């Protein structure tokens, strides 16, 4: 009784003050584990002053304790130093994490002896039979394996998806095990959570037997496992409606409301329904994979039921603050991804929103989400606002009920399935068409964190205003911030020369300051090994994974020129993808390359036909305001290494030589034809192979700095020790993408240079 009275007192005391404690929790989590610590530190200290000015000791004390608790929790889950795990070991793989792609098996596992540590598991399947076994498996597996433990690779390029960060924040995983041999394999579904996961996988396999794209909707909307193909996913995230296809908070609320609706129709009492929901919802949350949105929805429903039981009334702002605090205490990384930020940001925006019209509300949600979308995906589709207005009701009222209905139909009612499937196919095609319309997609680039914070705060200020004049004022500030950020990205003060870390291969981006012009030298690519059909993986190539996100992050929406040095796969293997995904004005290559049938295949069917420029040594090129001189090859060839196009240029008063894969003979040819040629920066030919980089050549050029572009653990052993010794002997310092990741030189027109490597964290 006394406890209840004290709780009541505390609740009354904290009423409509909980938002401060929630904000403190968020800022602390950001401060401990995020980038740019000074920004959250500044905001947090302001929050402390603000709460102190409330002159409420209880609130202040609670805020300080939340800061301390979240701070320690967040600090404790920082990644520890990597230690090695002995092999062979016994591991336990989660049933619903097993994925089979071509001949690759992947999953999430825990070590059986120390349950706490989890890691990714990769295994190369040996035979089609083995593949079939794992594809149809829905049990949790206990495996005894030998293999190699490696830390998960961090991103090595700007704009690239950082798997290491993602795995740590989403699953607390920092190692991957590359399994070389599986010694034994047994089922283990004893734990009740394992049983739940096994059922989930069973249902997943059942749904996957439905025709496409119905199966994608079924798995996404019912068990929260969104497995569409890559283009579909890309299209939907570009349109900003990807959250509709996978189970989210929005859908869970619709489901719960549906349950209440039908239960009351069936004359169940509300109390009974609430009691069942209280038991079933947390289990359901685990079953569907506990995404942030789902966690928020389930917690809110549970909180509502509890409050209803004790007959307390709380405001919406207090409820969301409590959920924020509880979820952050459970997982300090909750808000480090786009999904979490959007889920909480949008519900907070809806609560604070004071515009009454539906369009105004949707507009406000867009204003609040736009900066986050730009920060994480660098571009914005103009159709997003309208599509959300149409698609949200469509999903909630039509698609979700239909999908749930279809899921419970017996499997042999195929005509209904094919009817629904036909409708969904038509919908997908419409969406694909809209997504592929390039003019609607604005490539913005990545705005800075300060501007993003400013934009989000302004958006919240706008949506909270009731007076037209104040809204207008806020909109002007918002627009100004957006335009300033756009200008900063698209009209930079500095030019850059960037060696993209594309793996084994070359890809170099050159841009000019102010009115930015862009030239890409080579695209990179992978040598395709012959594979049997069951071994073929569905995967993205280097251009899609690395180059295109980097260009988007820089706000580059078209290339003024692509230079192709020669026809090897590691230089232009991904040319076709690039030409299909981004408009290119000119393509420059050495004469004779078009005679090569391999090369010609790659130019088939690009969306926009660029102009082709075949060149030879002695040709002067004016590419997008930059002057290049070709110094090699001297006669047309077939595009082999020795026919490489070598380009000389001056950027910001420094001389550069881009050498492609030219061999020692070619290098000697260059110094005999151009005996007075000197450079400041030299791209070492052929990834540092000893077949190139003749000492006489380098001695004559007298470079200040050398650059090597080669892949990690490449099969050719590039760069060769011999080349590195030559460089050391001639006292030429060098950087290699193999160890430094992406290497960027920024220059201004007056010749100031500074170099920045993206860095590979140990």
């Amino acid at each position: 009784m006394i406890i209840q009275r004290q709780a009541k007192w505390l609740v009354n005391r904290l009423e409509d003050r909980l938002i401060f404690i929630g904000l403190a929790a968020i800022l602390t989590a950001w401060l401990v584990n995020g980038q740019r610590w000074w920004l959250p530190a500044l905001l947090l200290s302001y929050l402390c002053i603000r709460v102190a000015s409330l002159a409420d000791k209880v609130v202040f004390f609670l805020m300080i304790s939340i800061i301390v608790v979240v701070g320690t929790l967040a600090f404790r889950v920082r990644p520890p130093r990597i230690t090695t795990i002995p092999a062979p070991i016994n591991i336990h793989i989660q049933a619903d994490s097993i994925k089979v792609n071509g001949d690759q098996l992947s999953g999430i596992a825990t070590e059986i002896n120390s349950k706490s540590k989890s890691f990714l598991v990769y295994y190369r399947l040996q035979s089609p039979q083995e593949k079939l076994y794992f594809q149809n498996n829905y049990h949790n597996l206990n495996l005894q394996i030998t293999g190699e433990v490696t830390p998960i690779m961090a991103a090595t390029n700007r704009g690239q998806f950082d798997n290491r960060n993602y795995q740590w924040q989403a699953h607390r995983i920092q190692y991957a095990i590359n399994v070389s041999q599986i010694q034994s394999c047994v089922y283990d579904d004893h734990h009740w959570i394992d049983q739940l996961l096994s059922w989930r996988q069973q249902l997943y396999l059942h749904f996957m037997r439905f025709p496409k794209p119905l199966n994608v909707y079924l798995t996404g909307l019912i068990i929260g496992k969104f497995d569409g193909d890559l283009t579909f996913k890309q299209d939907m995230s570009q349109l900003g409606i990807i959250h509709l296809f996978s189970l989210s908070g929005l859908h869970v609320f619709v489901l719960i409301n549906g349950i209440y609706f039908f239960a009351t129709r069936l004359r169940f009492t509300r109390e009974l329904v609430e009691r069942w929901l209280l038991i079933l919802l947390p289990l359901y949350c685990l079953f569907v994979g506990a995404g942030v949105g789902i966690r928020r929805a389930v917690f809110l429903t549970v909180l509502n039921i509890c409050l209803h039981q004790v007959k307390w009334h709380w405001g919406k702002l207090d409820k969301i603050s409590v959920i924020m605090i509880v979820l952050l205490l459970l997982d300090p990384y909750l808000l480090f991804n786009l999904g979490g930020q959007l889920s909480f940001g949008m519900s907070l925006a809806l609560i604070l929103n004071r515009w009454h019209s539906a369009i105004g509300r949707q507009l406000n949600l867009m204003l609040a989400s736009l900066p986050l979308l730009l920060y994480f995906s660098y571009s914005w589709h103009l159709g997003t606002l309208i599509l959300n207005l149409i698609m949200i009701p469509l999903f909630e009222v039509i698609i979700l009920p239909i999908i749930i209905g279809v899921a419970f139909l017996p499997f042999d009612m195929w005509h209904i399935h094919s009817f629904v499937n036909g409708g969904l196919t038509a919908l997908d095609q419409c969406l694909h068409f809209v997504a592929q319309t390039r003019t609607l997609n604005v490539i913005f680039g990545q705005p800075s964190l300060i501007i993003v914070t400013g934009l989000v705060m302004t958006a919240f200020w706008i949506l909270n205003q009731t007076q037209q004049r104040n809204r207008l004022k806020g909109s002007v500030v918002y627009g100004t911030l957006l335009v300033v950020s756009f200008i900063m990205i698209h009209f930079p003060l500095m030019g850059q020369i960037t060696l993209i870390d594309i793996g084994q291969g070359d890809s170099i981006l050159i841009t000019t300051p102010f009115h930015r012009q862009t030239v890409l030298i080579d695209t990179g690519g992978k040598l395709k090994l012959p594979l049997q059909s069951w071994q073929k993986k569905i995967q993205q190539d280097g251009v899609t994974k690395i180059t295109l996100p980097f260009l988007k992050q820089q706000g580059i929406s078209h290339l003024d020129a692509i230079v192709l040095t020669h026809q090897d796969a590691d230089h232009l293997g991904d040319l076709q993808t690039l030409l299909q995904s981004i408009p290119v004005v000119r393509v420059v290559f050495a004469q004779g390359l078009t005679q090569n049938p391999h090369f010609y295949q790659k130019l088939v069917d690009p969306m926009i036909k660029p102009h082709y420029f075949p060149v030879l040594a002695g040709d002067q090129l004016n590419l997008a305001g930059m002057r290049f001189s070709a110094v090699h090859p001297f006669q047309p060839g077939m595009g082999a290494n020795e026919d490489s196009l070598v380009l000389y240029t001056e950027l910001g008063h420094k001389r550069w030589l881009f050498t492609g894969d030219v061999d020692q003979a070619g290098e000697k040819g260059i110094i005999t034809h151009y005996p007075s040629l000197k450079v400041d920066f030299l791209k070492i030919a052929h990834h540092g192979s000893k077949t190139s980089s003749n000492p006489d050549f380098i001695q004559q050029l007298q470079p200040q700095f050398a650059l090597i572009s080669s892949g990690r653990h490449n099969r050719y052993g590039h760069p060769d020790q011999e080349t590195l010794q030559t460089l050391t002997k001639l006292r030429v310092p060098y950087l290699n993408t193999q160890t430094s990741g992406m290497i960027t030189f920024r220059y201004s027109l007056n010749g100031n240079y500074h170099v920045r490597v993206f860095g590979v964290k140990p």
Partner: protein
Amino acid sequence: MRCLLCAAQFHQTLSVQTILKLGPIMRPTVCSSCLDRFVPINHQNACPSCQRYQEKRTVCQDCQFWQAKYPGESFRHHALFYYDDQMQQFFQDYKARGDFRLATVFSSVINDFFRHHQFDTYCCLPPDLQRLANRGFDHVKALFSSLETLDLLQKRQSSQPQAQKNRQQRLATPQIYSFSGDYRCLKHPRSILLLDDIYTTGRTLTHARMCLREAGFKGKIVTFSLVRA
């Protein structure tokens, strides 16, 4: 939170400005639907000088009467609400029955007003001592508790409260206030705001105004009442 007037549960959703701005946050004591039932004064249909309800925006007869009586004065009065049944009920509960909690009902509206209108000195009209003893609190001062007020006036013992007189009797009331404050308080301020709960004929506020003049105040005197009858 429970509304003091209708006893219903209600919530306050803080605005972004309140969350970010420094300073304490008031908890409202009445729900917005109860507060909305009081009729705020519409300046389009009010006397510009005393806020009395009328069709035109010209100075009303009352004000012309006061102007003629005290030619040297410039009369300027602010008020927030009209006097209607709802307001009558409120004052019945607050003043007659003495529900002290109701003093906070209008505090957010009053605070909003004084955020935009500021004066050098604020002075509440005091009740006479006997009624103060009966009620147990100063009802005017309680309404304006967020302002720093000075006690400059004292009310003489009167036989009958103003509310129980008719209009003629009210206007005929002789001076009921005397100056009780420190005379030095009148030297510096350029403007004094006189605060009262209800403005009916303007007699009491004008008495208070003249009392200050007799005490030697030369600056601007503006009057304010929560309600204009």
